[in-house]
């Protein structure tokens, strides 16, 4: 049997807990931005499955929805989208 007892001095321990944004708002890293054309979106889930930052959620009602706070702009979603519903546009409008 094991009992978990906190250190009496309340020592700082090298423990971590799940957290969104451990590397900050990674949306800052972007120079190209994926934009979804909901009408073209077939709700195939490819972008959600492959998004390396887990910033895309596909729902039947909404289609693919991207969380731009964390999207790093890698463009992978646009590359895997079979219906051309996601296009990459310059972040700064250049």
């Amino acid at each position, binding site marked *: 049997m094991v009992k*978990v007892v*906190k*250190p009496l001095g309340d020592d700082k321990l090298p423990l971590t807990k799940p957290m969104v944004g451990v590397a900050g708002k990674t949306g800052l890293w972007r120079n190209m931005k994926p934009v979804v054309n909901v009408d073209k979106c077939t709700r195939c889930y490819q972008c959600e499955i492959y998004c390396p930052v887990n910033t895309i959620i596909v729902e039947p009602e909404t289609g693919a929805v991207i969380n731009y706070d964390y999207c790093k702009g890698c463009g992978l979603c646009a590359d895997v989208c079979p219906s051309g519903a996601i296009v990459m546009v310059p972040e700064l409008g250049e």
Partner: protein
Amino acid sequence: MGLKLALTGNHAIAYAVKLADPDVIAAYPITPQTPIVEKLAEMIEQGELRAKMIRVESEHSALAACFGAAVAGARTFTATSSQGLLYMHEFVHWVSRARIPVVMAIVSRTINTPWNIWPDHSDFVDQRDAGWVMSYAMDSQEAFDLTLQAFKISEDPRVYLPVMIGIEGFIIGHTAMPVEIPDEKQVKEWLGERRQPYVIDGSEPLGLGGLTFPEDTEDMFYHIQEAMGNVKKVIKEVDEEYGKLFGRRYGGLISCYNCTDAKYIAVSMGAWSGDLIEAVNKLRDEGYPVGVLRVRYYRPFPIEDVWEIVQNVKGIVVFDRSISFGAWGQIYTDLAAGLSLYTDKLPRMANIVAGIAGVNVTSEDFYGMLKSFIDKSESGLLDRNYFTWIKIRR
């Protein structure tokens, strides 16, 4: 009172581990530690010990597996020596910095090359910066007691640091001596359930040891130093409790012999302290006011206890069975550095390194070395502190 058996130091440690009822043991054989692991394997196969044994492929993996098991809530034990200890050295640091209780026995043997399996303290003291509580026994009984106490100390919430117990290979490791084994039920009650500061077993998503910025890491290391301060108190408490329950007290971090009225103190660690005591007996008979201060815990270094003993003495001789090449014996280094923080008037001091690589040192040798130091010091011939490496040839 329990059973009294003739046990080698190695087997004494195995018996203590058995009483501590560990969940997981992982080890790799190396001379002169192997009999510990063999004995434990035998106990497991005979059903006397319920622990799972991981017969790993290296010492690095031995401590790695113990670490993993400890993190997941298991009481664990491993043992090694010399090259094996050096091979696992990376993990020695890893475990303490994770603040996870683990107990390990070191059956000392010198460090190679050349191949040599005889004992000195070089493998043990090499771990001194790693954040482990480090104890060293003088005989099989003490090896037994220290091992059992190690689990208690390691799992104390004021400590939460791994503990290692050292004995010399062959001199203690393979030498049978009387060992009293306390009652199993009584030990179990005293030791209690395994305690640790966190557990990773899937009950909640928790991470250990992830990337940490300098400031936070430094905080964590500072707390290890703080915990080392607490260890001193805990060791004394545990020694006291153990004495009450099982009849043996050692006095804490150091053990003193004839120190109260001594004008000269000889400092040592491990088995040869016995030979040193014999030498001191003879010197006392001849009127020399000399005592022995034996270091039982090398980390945390017992500088407060040492200072209490030596503050009024004329001279201190530290016998080291290891050498930091290019510097001095490690116990001397720590003791001198520690005393320098207590006083600006150090007594006359000498550091004698001997018994390296298993060279035999007898009580006659100690008698000669000590007598020479005291005689020279008293006659005013010794006008400075000194370091020497005594090579004993017979």
